[in-house]
Structure formats: C-alpha cells, structure tokens
C-alpha cells in the first residue's frame, strides 16, 4: 500500500489529446477478501448457452440476436482457459499473446478489481488497434507510451501489437465456487488456473478454500480429459492442502515437475501476476503443483 501512495494523482490531470492510458491499479484497490458463500447481487447466466459471449469476445462470437447464420456450436470457439480469481489479470494478459487463437476468461469476485481488468483489456485492445493502424513506427508512440502507465513496464510501452490483439481475453465478475457450471459446459476447458488463492488460514475457514473435495468435482466436470489444473501459492500449508486434495481426487493425477519444464505456461504463472511479483519482492517461496484431468470413469 505504502508504495502506491502519491500526491495529486496524475489521473486528475488533463488527458486530452494524449493517447489512451492504461487504468491504474491504485484506483481499483479493494480488500482481498470477499465471502463466496454470501449472496452477492451477481449476474450469472442460467446456463453456458444463454450467456452473451459476444460482449466479451466480439471478435469470436457473432452479436445477438444471431443473424441468418446460426452459430454452429460444434465449431464455435469457446473459452478454454479459465483463471479463477484472476485478480488484476496479470496471467491472462501475459498468456493472451501466447495463445492468440484460444479464448481465455478470468473470473473475479471483487467488483472493482474486475473493473480494472476489464478496463485494462479494453485499453489494450484499443492500443493494439491503434498500433496496427499506424503504418510506420512513430516516435510519438514511444513518448506517450510511458506516460500514464505505472503498472508494468511491458504494456505501458506497448509499441507494437501482439498476436491476437487481446481480443481473446476477457474477464467477468463471478463467483466461481458457486456458478462455474453456469459459465462452462462439460469438458469445455483445457486449462484452469488457481494462482495464489486465498489461504483461509483458520481451520474453520478451510471449507472456503477454492480447492476442496466437493469443488474438485465441478472443476473436473468443466475440464476436459487431458486438461490441466495449475496451482501456485506462497503458503506452504495451502500448497500441501491443494496437492493432497487434488492427488486424492480420483479424476486428477499429479504432473511431475519434469514434465512441466516444457510447458511455457508454468513460467508465466510464477511471474506474471501481481501476487507473484509481490512474493518475489518479499523474497518468498513459490510452490507449484499441476494436475492432469484423467479420462472419465466407465461403468
């Protein structure tokens, strides 16, 4: 918190004529804890099919109401990566250019944090368009780039567009513990991320942990066989808890760390989130555990 305190925020300065700036995290800070069991006034679709995905991925879904073309659900692209509790969106923003053809969605229960990520994605998409539209690399671009942006050197100086133009990433405010099946169909996802989840240290709060024997059934349901659950935390107890429950769950098996070496995603989960960077700064340790979704049981 202390690091972010500033005097008269630059946001209050005039922005006219400047290139659109990235949203600043300090305007969106919210307390880390929100009770997932309470009835927030959340919007969630009745079912995955009734969700307006066009609002999130206009480049991939036709606008409703569907025109003469029905969406052929067999080939319609759907979200494949889900970042549960995506926080400020660091992972998704890093992954989006790596997998430009893959739709990815962050779910976050906190209002303003979701708003931050949403604004950030909007800004990035616009930025990419602007960059594409500029035929030559103007020097203007470089100057204005570092202006408003304090949150990460990379995108502030976004000097060229990235593959996919961030059209494949979006965020939604939602309660993943309660309503995951409302957003994703059976076996839809290929990756689920649980990065630095709330440890809920007290024993009586353990049931609020995002990994539990009961919730694992839901994660297994939306994740396709062969899909991967990625977990990382700096709390050893939580790491052991998650590893234990996932290992004990009949539909998941641990991926040995050797096998993870080839996965470019693993590096991102360690470094690209705000939480991850915080742990680095404080010299903490990070524990990674990844699990593969096994095939469905047969009778």
């Amino acid at each position, binding site marked *: 918190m202390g690091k972010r305190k500033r005097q008269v*925020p630059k*946001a*209050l300065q005039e*922005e006219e004529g400047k290139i*659109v700036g990235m949203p*600043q995290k300090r305007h*969106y*800070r*919210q*307390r880390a*804890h929100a*009770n*997932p*069991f309470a*009835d*927030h*006034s959340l919007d969630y679709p009745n079912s995955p099919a009734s969700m307006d995905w066009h609002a999130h991925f*206009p*480049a991939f*879904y*036709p606008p409703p109401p569907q025109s003469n*073309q029905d*969406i*052929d659900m067999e*080939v319609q692209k759907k979200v494949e990566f889900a970042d549960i509790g995506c926080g400020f969106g660091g992972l998704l923003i890093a992954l989006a250019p790596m997998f430009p*053809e893959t739709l990815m969605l962050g779910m976050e229960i*906190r*209002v303003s944090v979701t708003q931050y990520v949403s*604004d950030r994605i909007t*800004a990035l998409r*616009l930025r990419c*368009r602007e960059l594409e*539209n500029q*035929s030559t690399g103007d020097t203007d671009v470089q100057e204005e780039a570092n202006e408003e942006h304090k949150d990460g050197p990379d995108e502030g100086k976004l000097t060229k567009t990235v593959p996919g*133009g961030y059209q494949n990433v979006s965020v939604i405010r939602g309660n993943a*513990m*309660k*309503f995951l*099946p*409302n957003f994703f169909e*059976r076996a839809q996802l290929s990756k689920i991320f649980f990065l630095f989840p709330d440890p809920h*240290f007290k*024993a009586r709060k*353990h*049931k*609020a942990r995002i990994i*539990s*024997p*009961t*919730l694992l*059934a839901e994660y*297994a349901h939306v994740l396709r066989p062969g899909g991967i659950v990625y977990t990382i935390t700096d709390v*050893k*107890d939580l790491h*052991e*808890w998650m590893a*234990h429950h996932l290992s004990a769950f*009949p539909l998941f098996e641990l991926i040995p760390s050797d096998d993870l070496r080839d996965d470019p995603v693993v590096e991102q989960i360690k470094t690209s989130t705000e939480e991850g960077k915080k742990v680095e700064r404080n010299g903490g340790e990070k524990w990674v555990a990844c699990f593969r979704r096994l095939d*469905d*049981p047969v009778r």
Partner: protein
Amino acid sequence: MSKYPLTRLIFGREASIALAGPHIFVLDSRTGNIRCSTQNISDQSQPHSGGPIQFIATDVDFVHIATIAGDKKLVVWNLSDLQVLSSREIPKRATGLTFTRDGQTIIVSDKFGDVFYYPLHPPPVEETVPPPAPPEPEPSTKRSSLVAHDNKHGELILGHTSIITTFLLTPDEQYIITADRDEHIRVSWYPKGYHIERYCLGSTKFLSALCIPQSDHSVLISGGGDPSLRVWDWMSGKLLGEVPIFEHVRPFLKVKPERKVKGGESGVGRKGRKKRGAKEGEAEKPAEPKAEGGGAGEGEGEDEEKRQNPQTEEAAERAEQQSSEPEDVLVVSKIASFNVEEEKMVLFSAVGASALFYFAYPLSDAPPRYVDFGKPVLDFALGTEGNSIWVSVDGQWHEPAAVNITEDGDVEMSNGPEGEVAVVRHIRWRDGQFHESATKDAPPLFTALNSSCLIEASHKDLAALELYSDLAFLPKSKREEEGEEEGSDPGGEDKQKDKRLGVRALGRQKARMALLRKQNEELEEGQGASSSTGAKGGIKKMVCLRRGFCVNMKGKFMVKV
C-alpha cells in the same frame, strides 16, 4: 389445546407411519391400531432431545426407520417395536434423508451442501479408529481431508456450494440427483458422486422438489420457486417441457411470508441481530468475515438454527423495520407420480397451499387441476390400495379472522370444535377425478390417524415445527450492489477507504471516459470508411463466419486451427 399436525405420512401394506412433532406412530395398515409409538417411551429414553423430528424415512421393506431431528442426530429404529438401534451425530442440519433400495445405506443431505452416506448400522466400536485429535493449522496433510468435510460416521458422496434442498436416487441407483438453492440440478454418479454426469440448468429460482415419474425413468420433474415446473431428460440435461403452475396455486396460498425490507446495511449493528423471524437475508449476516461465531460456510443456514418463534420475534421487531406487504411465495414442497387405471399423472403440493394439484403426464395442454382441503397441505402420500392418496393438513391453521388478541395481549386462535375438520384426508380416484372419502367410506386407518395420533402441543411447540419457514428462507433476494464495500470491511478500513474513495473513483472514471471516447471515435471512423478492405479505419465489424473463421482488423483471415 392445540395438537401436533402430522407432518409426515408413510404407508405400507402391513404398517404405516405417522409423524407428529417429536413422536412416531406405527400403525397397522389394515386395522388402524397403533402397534407402537414413542409416546410410551419415557423422556429419558427418547433418542432425540426435545424438538420435533424433522426427517423420517423407512426402507422399502418397512424394517427400519431413520429419523433426524434438530439435535443433529441420525437415529435408526426397528420399525416393529420402535427400539432404538443406534444414534449418530451428523455434522450439519439435515435437509434430506433416504434409504437405498437394499435398506443397508442411509443418505443424508445437509444445509452446507454436502451429501453423506451412512451404513445402516454403525460399525462396532472396537473397529472404529478415532480420528486424530482436532485440527489446527498444523501442516499435516494426512488429516487435512477431514477438516473441511468432517464426519465421524459418514462418507462424503458429493457437495454443492449451496444448500441442497432436495435430492433423490434414480430408480436404478446408478445416479444421484441433487438440487440446491442456487438453481442447480446436478446429476452425479452414485456412489461415485465426484463424477458429475450432467447439470440440468435453466431454473431461475431455487429448487425444492424433484421427482422421477414411474412411467418414464429418463425424465426428471423439478419444482421450486419458479412459476413453472420443469421437465428434463436428466441424462442429457435437456429441457423437455414446462408446466406453469403459479397462477393455479396462488388462490390457495394460505400462508405467506412477511418479508421485511432491510434497514440500512452498514449502520445497524450486525452482531446484534442474531435471532430473527425466518428471513434469508439475515442468514447472510453472520457469514460476513467479521463474525467470529460462524464460519463463512455456515452463514447461509446457520441462522435457521437460532430462529425462534417467528410470531413473537416479528412482533417485537416490527417497530424497527419497515414491513412490506405479504407476498405470494411459491415453494413446491413435493412432487410425486401417480398411475391409476389408465391415467398417469403427477401430483404436487406447495408450502402453505391448501390444495393438492395434479396434471397429466405425459404433458398435455390441460392446466393443472386441484383438490382443495381448506387448510394448508403438509404432506401427501400414495395409499397402498393403488387408487388413493392420503393428505395431511395443518389443522391448527385458521383463517386470519379467527385470531383474537385478548386483553392480556395474548394472541388467541379461536378453534372450531375439535372434531370438525379432519387433519388427515383420504381421496380416491374414480371416473376421471378425485373423490374425498367420508369417514364411513375410508379405511380404518383414517379414523385412527385422525384421532389416536393427535398429541397435545403448545404454541411454542407448533412454532418449533417451522412448517412454513421455507417461504421466507429459500428465496434469495438481490441485495443492492454494495459498490466497493463488497464482503464487508472492518470499521478501520472503511474510514481509510472513504478518504481515498473520491480520488480513486475519479481516477477510474477519467480513465474510463477516455477509453470510451477513444472507442467511440474509432467506431465512427470505422462506419464512415469503406467497409470491406483493411483501410485505415477503426473497428471493423468482426464477422464470425460459419466455420469459425475470423476476420481481423485488417481484413485478413485468421484461420481457426
């Protein structure tokens, strides 16, 4: 003096069971004689301490009875002599109870959203290894699986993150279908409940009743707060049809919840409000991280346990609250299929409604029909004759006009003469409709149920039954958007936040306005420019072609892999 209504009736060829408050009656189905009842047992020997029995179930062969009461004990009895065979503690208040077909396993759902199974008889004491001493954040992973879903006696089948309001096993017992307050119907394997087969999604309100009709085991009928019942192919999750019922039930709703408008969120002391008349909004309060007493997960239903006599509580707190009009709330309480002669139909009842409703299944266009009993229906059950239904009504309920306030300020219900209205009714299907049986036409059980099973109960006892609490408890209210204060904050942070609020909100707003402006500019440009090729311009409409190809900003095709 008031009497306990019979909250549950179960009929078998030889024996029938009636539940009256804390007492069980086992009657001979032919003669109506009481074979045994818990009334005869001394108070000390009662396995359930005080309070009414909330759930009762029997196995298919009427050998054992299982009961659960507010004391969170699962008690197994011998049906023939009501001898108590075992008593086990369950971790949370139960919301459903059933035997498996072989009678060897008991399944219990609870308010936390878990479903456990228990062997019929607990294993002998020597064999049980007591779980290691209680928990604290010691990083021992061996026990950690116990900590979240702790249960000494039962095994976890599955869990929802919401109160499971009802569940059933499919007839072949290969699947278990569970439904919750958050509109989910989930079909999971049984006993490997960790494998979800399907969700049946589409309900817009809580679920409270499920039924698989006898004539078609691939179909599931669900009901709850939605104005229609839904019919599903549960294996595929596909919705097959709907049956609008609300307008048909509405005229018979005798009991309505009084929903209070909540006062301001932050100002009123949250900790102070512990005991309330049934109101699900309150149930959220202790769920806020601030409260020490209840953990987060318990918040949803915890308050129910603390709820006292709604009448006096409500009266007392009415002054503080702005009370709103009583509204009609639909809570489907039970759905059952009934095949008789050539007819196949589905019966259902609703909490607080005085009629039993039925409609033809397979579905036709005809609206549901009804049999009105004048007083709220509490339970109904198929009789063993094959063409009859037994219905239990709330004999203590009276038209509001009959309530007097005496000089002392006591609320007094004016009762009609005792024998006037039978609390258990009997209807037979004949010639295309139901006919209510008069005493002389009814089986001997009829008289027995209406006379010998009536136990005295005080007002407090009756209130403890919480017969209509679901009307207020199950519906969810949309709380107003709390803005940034979601999930509550301790006081200290509030002040800090308030100061910075202005700055932050302003900052966000500015950024967003700039973005929007930018977006609009581009949109306008894009519309002005020529459409097809990738000329310099703003946002091109993204066209999603049939095969999933995509056109990007420059008009280049991006091939879907």
